[in-house]
């Protein structure tokens, strides 16, 4: 079996909803509807504002992120230089045997790619990662038309640069509400 076939056969649990819903979940969730978060380390005001707005954009759903100014909350964001890795955003977590996120979940923005980009693009990337951190998986691909584009599409050039999406779309909201 080739590496690609093996990888395709043993992969992340992406749990799609019915075709009409067009969202997918990653099989993990929080026990409550509100989760505190803050930054691993201080960052500049552009990133701080964009990432705070990104988290808050999910508060239109039945789940909400609450920013705290100190301590070690279950979700922590970081915007730093991870290098020319190929990704501009990353979510990192472990999931318990009962299907709940273990703290700490990392929501990460790679400044190697985002420095100098519009604030809304940074917000699009961060909001997408916050979506993973509440339990959503990817939907769509590079060719998804803008009329069907979701925040949970994992190609920044399609999601934001082509379609201008930086907030949860109706199906993203439906997905969060389905979990919580």
């Amino acid at each position: 079996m080739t590496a690609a076939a093996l990888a395709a056969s043993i992969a992340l649990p992406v749990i799609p909803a019915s075709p009409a819903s067009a969202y997918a979940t990653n099989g993990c969730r929080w026990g409550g509807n509100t989760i505190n978060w803050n930054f691993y380390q201080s960052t500049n005001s552009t990133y701080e504002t964009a990432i705070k707005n990104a988290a808050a954009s999910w508060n239109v759903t039945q789940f909400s992120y609450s920013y705290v100014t100190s301590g070690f909350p279950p979700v922590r964001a970081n915007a730093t230089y991870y290098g020319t890795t190929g990704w501009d955003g990353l979510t990192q977590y472990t999931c318990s045997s009962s299907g709940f996120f273990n703290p700490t979940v990392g929501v990460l923005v790679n400044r190697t790619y985002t420095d100098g980009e519009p604030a809304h693009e940074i917000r699009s990337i961060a909001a997408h990662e916050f979506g993973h951190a509440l339990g959503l998986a990817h939907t769509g691909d590079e060719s998804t038309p803008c009329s069907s584009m979701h925040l949970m599409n994992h190609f920044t050039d399609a999601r934001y640069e082509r379609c201008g999406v930086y907030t949860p779309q109706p199906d993203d909201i439906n997905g969060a509400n389905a979990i919580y």
Partner: protein
Amino acid sequence: MRAMKLLTICAGLTITAACGGQAAHGAGSRPEGPVTVLHASRATNYASLDELATASTMIVVGTAGSSHVENLGGVDFTVTDVTITDPTSSSPSQIEVRQTGTAGDLTDPSELSPILSRGKQYLLYLQPFELQKGQPTGEYVIVGDEGVWEAGDSGAYQLTVTQTGLPETVKVSDSPNGIVVIPGQ
């Protein structure tokens, strides 16, 4: 939809060591306890070999050797020694290739390339790894984290990532100007 194809024996279950089998991120034993899951958002998607070649500083066939894990900003990266099969005068005989995550992590090939497996041969489109653009570190990364094909038994190479515009299968031959990559079998 790609998501439909990703249901596995672990669907509906949590990501733990008990999920069984090899981690999608590469060969290797699963660590005890919950497995780290990574979701990545691609910065760039390459639609063709020509686009990939334009972004590359080096296109090589090489064999993966030993590797080590480094942590940067809370994220583990695997750095693998790659021995180039037929180095030219302008390429080194051995390089280090950095990838995100470890062989024990759980991820998706549409988001992150599977960790290079020791002893396997790969076609690699590479560019210098830079923390900040314009400042190479000496290591290399796979362009877009997409330009990687694994050698198969038939002589063809199979793309290890998914949801790109790149050919899933290519063949490689030598030429006086370096290797030539031909899409298809």
